């Protein structure tokens, strides 16, 4: 094991895969000379040269499409969005080209492209830079979507993503880039479709992913002090989704809260609730609650932003409700 930050783990995954496979390249705004808007790609230009670490103009639809086209004929592009918010102007490329080329061609083509970048809220970056974009993309057959919360998973999931034959959307968090943790030495791959128990517990399951795993763990500590022992699941992979880990945990705790960033209408949380009620209805002792971003565009004001973003305290209240401690 060695300790590193999420930022370094992502960089190491990219560098190892570029070392291993000539077809892998990194493309995006400010990834080369500027060394990455969030310094994820720092040093990669020096190491791999401008043929493989490529600055683009501000043309998300253009370079997303180039990544898809290059992948379609055999390359392994890693396309960085400075933030996932900007993928909205490339949405058509991801929806209509990346996800559908294989099907439209009757299975002749595959599109092994990785799109990555920071997602969801940061700190006071306002309504147009705070979207949790995964909810739009998980809906689309043909895509895979992953969102790590630790340095080890950040590295392992990205390496798996680069080797996958399908388009993979890899969601980071600006607020996690400096989080430290142990990463296994040597070849480290994390499979898709496998969640992780971030904390074991018996009274209630908190299902989460990405930054919210850390918030869920904080809530679990508060609840432990109140005598409620929570299990925290880090989904890691949103599509495919690990149904087994959900069913196993709910079979033990019989209660669940799903905590994530994103608006309450639909989305990943609603999907998790549907899977649990469908697969483990008889195990449930209470309705499942969701803790989401409140149903507003993100306000700039710091206090209002914190009000809108899901907080540990809201998770605590939801868990108290489903364990009938608050009534």
């Amino acid at each position, binding site marked *: 094991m060695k300790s590193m930050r999420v930022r370094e783990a992502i960089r190491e995954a990219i560098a190892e895969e570029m070392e291993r496979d000539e077809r892998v390249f990194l493309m995006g705004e400010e990834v080369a000379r500027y060394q990455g808007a969030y310094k994820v790609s720092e040093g990669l230009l020096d190491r791999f040269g401008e043929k493989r670490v490529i600055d683009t103009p501000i043309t998300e639809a253009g370079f997303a499409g180039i990544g898809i*086209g290059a992948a379609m004929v055999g390359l392994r592009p890693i396309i960085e969005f400075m933030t996932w918010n900007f993928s909205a102007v490339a949405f058509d490329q991801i929806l209509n080209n990346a996800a559908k080329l294989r099907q439209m061609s009757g299975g002749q083509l595959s599109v092994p492209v990785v799109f990555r970048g920071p997602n969801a809220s940061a700190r006071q970056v306002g309504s147009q830079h705070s979207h949790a974009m995964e909810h739009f993309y998980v809906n689309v057959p*043909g895509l895979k979507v992953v969102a790590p919360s630790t340095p080890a998973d950040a590295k392992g999931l990205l390496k798996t993503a680069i080797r996958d034959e399908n388009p993979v959307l890899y969601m980071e968090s600006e607020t996690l880039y400096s989080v430290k943790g142990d990463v296994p030495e040597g070849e480290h791959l994390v499979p898709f479709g496998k969640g992780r128990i971030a904390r074991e517990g018996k009274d209630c399951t908190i299902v989460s992913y990405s930054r919210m795993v850390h918030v869920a763990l904080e809530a679990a500590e508060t609840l432990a002090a109140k005598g409620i022992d929570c299990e925290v699941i880090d989904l890691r992979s949103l599509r495919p989704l690990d149904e087994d880990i959900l069913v196993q945990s709910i079979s033990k705790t019989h209660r669940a809260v799903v905590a994530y960033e994103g608006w309450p209408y639909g989305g990943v949380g609603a999907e998790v609730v549907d899977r649990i009620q469908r697969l483990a209805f008889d195990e449930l002792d209470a309705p499942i609650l969701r803790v989401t971003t409140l149903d507003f565009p993100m306000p700039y004001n710091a206090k209002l932003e914190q009000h809108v973003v899901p907080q540990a305290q809201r998770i605590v209240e939801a868990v108290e409700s489903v364990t009938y401690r608050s009534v």
Partner: protein
Amino acid sequence: MKEPKTALDMYRMMLLIRRFEEEAARAYSLGKIGGFLHLYIGQESIAVGAAHALKPTDSVVTTYRDHGLALARGMTSNAGMAELFGKVTGCSKGLGGSMHFFDKEHRMYGGHGIIGAHLPLAAGVAFASKYTGDDGVTMVFYGDGSASIGATHEGMSLAALWKLPIVFVCENNQYSMGTSLERSISVTDMSKKADGYGMAKDRFVAEDVFEVRDRLQVAVDRARRGEGPTLVEILTYRYRGHSMSDPAKYRTKEEVEEYKNRDALNRLRAELDAAAETRAELEALEASVEAEVAESIRFADESPEPTADLLESTTYAGEFAR
């Protein structure tokens, strides 16, 4: 007659495309083909001229008006017609339909239904050629209706910036669905857009398939030499409506007749008929086209439909992600 063998080959392909589509239109009216059917009739000299300017190792990408280019690149009539009929023997196993002809073997990468979105994709294919140094050139086709949308601009911007080996062919058939050129774009000479990108450009009428081939050849050679993209605007005309549901009432009968009088297919046939060495070949050649199209209809009709077990493996490579 210059290049008599090539002239006969090009005539055969142009005729095949026209007869293929006329029979497809008939099958459509009989309910054998569903959804949209956008015919290329009138524009055949462009796909055929282009195919003769490219090597088999080059790539093409086009819009939903894609049957002609697919056939010109070497897709069989059977695979094309079966796709229109929604059969599993079709080029895209009956999952793509008229708008999504794909033929990886012949480097025909679609068949795209979102206007302009295929230009960045094609730039990606060209990017891969530059990255791997495989000497390939990509030719991407789009209509006058694609000229104003954002993805077209981004695809051209990046291709020009990085000097990608690509040729942008604007098939200006003068109507974006029912909206005429002057009602849809402020500068109707669309080749002028090349100036803004620092690209080479060309502009001509598609009446002579040899001219189409030769002028596209200049652009292809330029791309292959590493001198970057060219924007080639080719003025053409579609004789039918935008799709089968369009009676094209926004055009006058006289206008359509005027263009039909300058038909590139008829023009080439007249030239072939005027030379003794090629005249002798015409009858057998035309009969072989009729037989091929008739066979494609029979093949498509009798082929089995795709079954639902195909859906998972064509959505994801490997295990399905749900």
